[in-house]
């Protein structure tokens, strides 16, 4: 769907800004907000560019850079830290050969950090796109990543 079409699914009311940005990001192949997408949104809602940009850069769920198909968000809140999430991060970095904030060369994964996911009782935890994974350990990480690689192959 074109940017215009996605935007026009919403009423031109300012309170729709976040919904529009999510819709645009979710439908973009790079999982991000392009300059054009933000410009069109501003025009449609009668906002200035900076108003849209301010919102898009405030929320960490939005990215202005193209990202992988699967976004891994690892919780770095105190409980997960206590449960040695740093080891998990290093492991993912090594499997995917990227650093936090980067996207794997096959453009499948982007690794990001996150504030508390509310899963402290089963820390450390992370999300891949909309799914939450808990009680992470060396083996489960490998499995999860492999599962998504297979998923990508299937479609």
């Amino acid at each position: 769907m074109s940017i215009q079409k996605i935007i026009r699914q919403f009423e031109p009311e300012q309170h729709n800004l976040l919904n529009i940005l999510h819709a645009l990001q979710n439908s973009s192949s790079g999982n991000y907000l392009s300059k054009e997408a933000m410009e069109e949104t501003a025009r449609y809602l009668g906002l200035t560019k900076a108003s849209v940009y301010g919102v898009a850069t405030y929320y960490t769920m939005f990215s202005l850079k193209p990202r992988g198909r699967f976004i891994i968000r690892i919780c770095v809140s105190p409980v997960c830290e206590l449960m040695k999430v740093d080891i998990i991060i290093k492991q993912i970095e090594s499997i995917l050969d990227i650093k936090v904030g980067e996207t794997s060369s096959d453009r499948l994964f982007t690794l990001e950090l996150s504030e508390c996911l509310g899963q402290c009782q089963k820390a450390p935890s992370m999300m891949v796109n909309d799914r939450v994974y808990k009680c992470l350990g060396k083996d489960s990480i490998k499995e999860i990543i492999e599962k998504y690689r297979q998923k990508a192959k299937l479609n």
Partner: protein
Amino acid sequence: MDKTISLYIDGKKISVKSGLNLLQAAKENSIDIPHLCYHKKLSPTGACRLCIVKIKGQKGLIASCTVRAEDGMEVTAFDEELEEARKYLLDYLLSEHDESRDATYRDEFRELVLRYGLGEKKNRKFAPIWKHIGYPKDNSSPVLTYDAAKCIKCFRCIKACDEVQGKNVLSFTKRGIASYITGGFEKWSESECDGCGECIQLCPTGAIVEKPHRGEINFEKEHKKVRTTCPYCGVGCQLELIVQDGRIVRANGAEGVSPNDGRLCVKGRFGCDYVNHPERLKVPLIKKGGRFVEAGWDEALDLVADKFNETIKKHGKKALAGYASAKTTNEDNYLFMKFIRTVFGNNNVDYCTRLCHASTVTAMLRSLGDGAGSNSIEDYENSDCILVTGNNMTETHPVTATFVKHAAQRKGARIIIIDPKWTPLVKESHIWLQPGLGTDVALLNGMIRVIIEEDLIDRRFIKKRVKGGMQALDELRALTAKYTPEYVEKVCGVPADLMQKAARIYAGARRPLIATGMGYSQQLTGTHNVFCLINMMLISGQIGRKGAGINPPRGQNNVQGVSDVGASPFTYPGYVPVGDDENRRKIAGIWGVPYEELDPEKGLSTIEIMQAAYRGEIRAMYIMGENPMLTDPNLNHTEEAIKKLDFLVVQDIFHTETTALADVVLPATSFAESEGTFVNSDRRVLRVRRAVDPPGQARQDWEIIAEIAEKMGRPLGKYRSESEIWDEIARTSPIFAGISYDRLEEKGIQWPCTSSEHPGTSTLFEEKFNTPDGLGRLHPVDYAEQSEKSGSEYPYILNTGRILYQYHSSTMSRRNSSLNQFANEAYVLVHPEDAKKQGLSDKMKVDISSRRGTVRSVAVKISTDVLEGELFMPFHYAEAPVNRLTRDELDPYSKIAPFKLSAVRLEAAK
């Protein structure tokens, strides 16, 4: 209303008017509670926490900017705990802050750092961390630089842009300690920023600074501040010029004074560089053998005096004429007018108002008895409906537009725009009616019909305030009967339901204000357009109170004043007709001339003077600060007319297209070198003060005029100062009778001001109109088709107008590099459908021709801002003189020319 309350701060009793916040209440009583994010023009933010106080009966430390001062409050503003907390906060803030600075701005943060003994690093608890954050710098704007490392995130710039200017261009990006301000997507030059610089003026730390003159400003060295009035449009913004080493290095808006309360537009803030431009005229010039030769004042003025005298002798008094100037002061224009009437001995004096609001003024004078705006500029904020007709105020009167935007954005006023062309104010509007060019009378008659049919009229008002009462209404009803919504839609192309809705909103509003501009006045039916507006206003009773009336914003700084002081072929100072015997007798007495010598016959108006010159009836002309060779309609004709003159004197600050044709050119002072007064659009007499010395031998206009008169053997009188000239103006014009320079020291006064005790008048017509019987008049007028139409040979209708960054014939504005960086090229707006039909693309060059002439090589801008079949061109650019295309056919009532409507064709440039 304004109740006074008393409270105690640190045991001291203070009294303030109720409604203030606690910090402001303290400030107004010289209690200096520290603060950074607070500014009295902005809503309190409470971000810096420095204004914390303790309030008896309330818990904790409270930011005083966020609480209302209440009667009986007991406040502690300074104790050890509060001072420690403030010091801690400042120290913390410092660690995120780049302290490097230059002396080009007031650094409020540094002042507090020093006040709390944090100047020395050893007194600080926190180490600097700002370098590790990696704050960016945005240097992309033509007029300003933003340095995030100097920013304390106080929100003042964001609120300045949003709350004060109504633009909301700025925002925060990122979060927490890493956040900073952004324009656009972190590139200011690609944002919607139009360069007004309100953010610069309100920035407390120098994080946002202007670019021009950075190398020259040094507040640690001697400098002076001069309060004066902006030389651009007719809003009359109060400027504070900073002068260093004899040059203007900065213009700030003067805070706390009407009409602008510190606000400026890009021209006011960044448009003063022309004053010091090397091309300023510095010595008198005499044309000898086809080229200009420098001359002394005596030689030049002797020649002028001889030639004028010779013309009177050879061709009679009526063979001379003068153009006064809306750029120069009231004092200059008053003496110019006196010169024409007593030295030339006729009434052939006029100026650019004839090309501007003459039709509006004519209609208003006939219907209401006064041609000036009925309400104050700031009164737009009190309106609940603003009807904007043919008026691109966001670009032409940007500071007035801020009040309109406030009304819409913050107070829910509904804005109705009538304009065939898109203007930025459309974004704020409730309804935008887009009638085809020249069909306004039909549209307004349609709206009037709706108001009468649906009984939205104000019977009491009509019976009490309108001549003929309900009978006059019946005549209007009969005339407008045929303007059914269907008929109006057919003629104007405006959807019937929108037109009806607009009429209902206007008539039903409690306080609607009309802002009418050039789109309505510069037509052959200009006077009729405004008659219709006034008809609509009178039958719905929408004038004569705060927030309701009609305001035609004046285009130039002193258009209003020049008419007020009588530089008109039809009226003496204070709008007394030239034919009024009693007034002429009175004026003759004041001037000390025989009454018989004052010509009782009306003089020629602006375009009529040119037409008479063309016919050889006017032989010599004196032009002060006008450039008819760019601004008159049908320029080819104007050029021939001027060339037929035996003798032309032009007095100006730069060479113009007109000085090129002069025999003598006299160098005059700019606003910054002049003393005197201007009158702005809302009748406010405002002081103009000398900030710098004139360049070379340039002299103030009135001095030159007086000396020519002297040399012609008809002295105008002895004046030692501008203030003495003003006092004479006050004696000749009842509307100014109570105004003197001492009363103007702090702020302007709105006429009429009839005695030295009179406070001035912010709203006209509250009790009665200024007509002889005090009643308003309806002038029912029918729609007539335009004489000039598009057809096969000339398929488009061309509209002309102004843009934000340039000003009139751009003699001044184009001599500012800042303004030129925003806009320095002529263009023609073409609708995408027309572009398709003609195979035109963006930036392609076209020749534009009308029955009068051709303008070559103009860049195309494809835009839906114009209707299909219509074009728009700004008139500022000498290389694309659009007035070679316009007509000098005149509106029979006001003698205005139809700049807004010419049939033209487009061809790819040859």
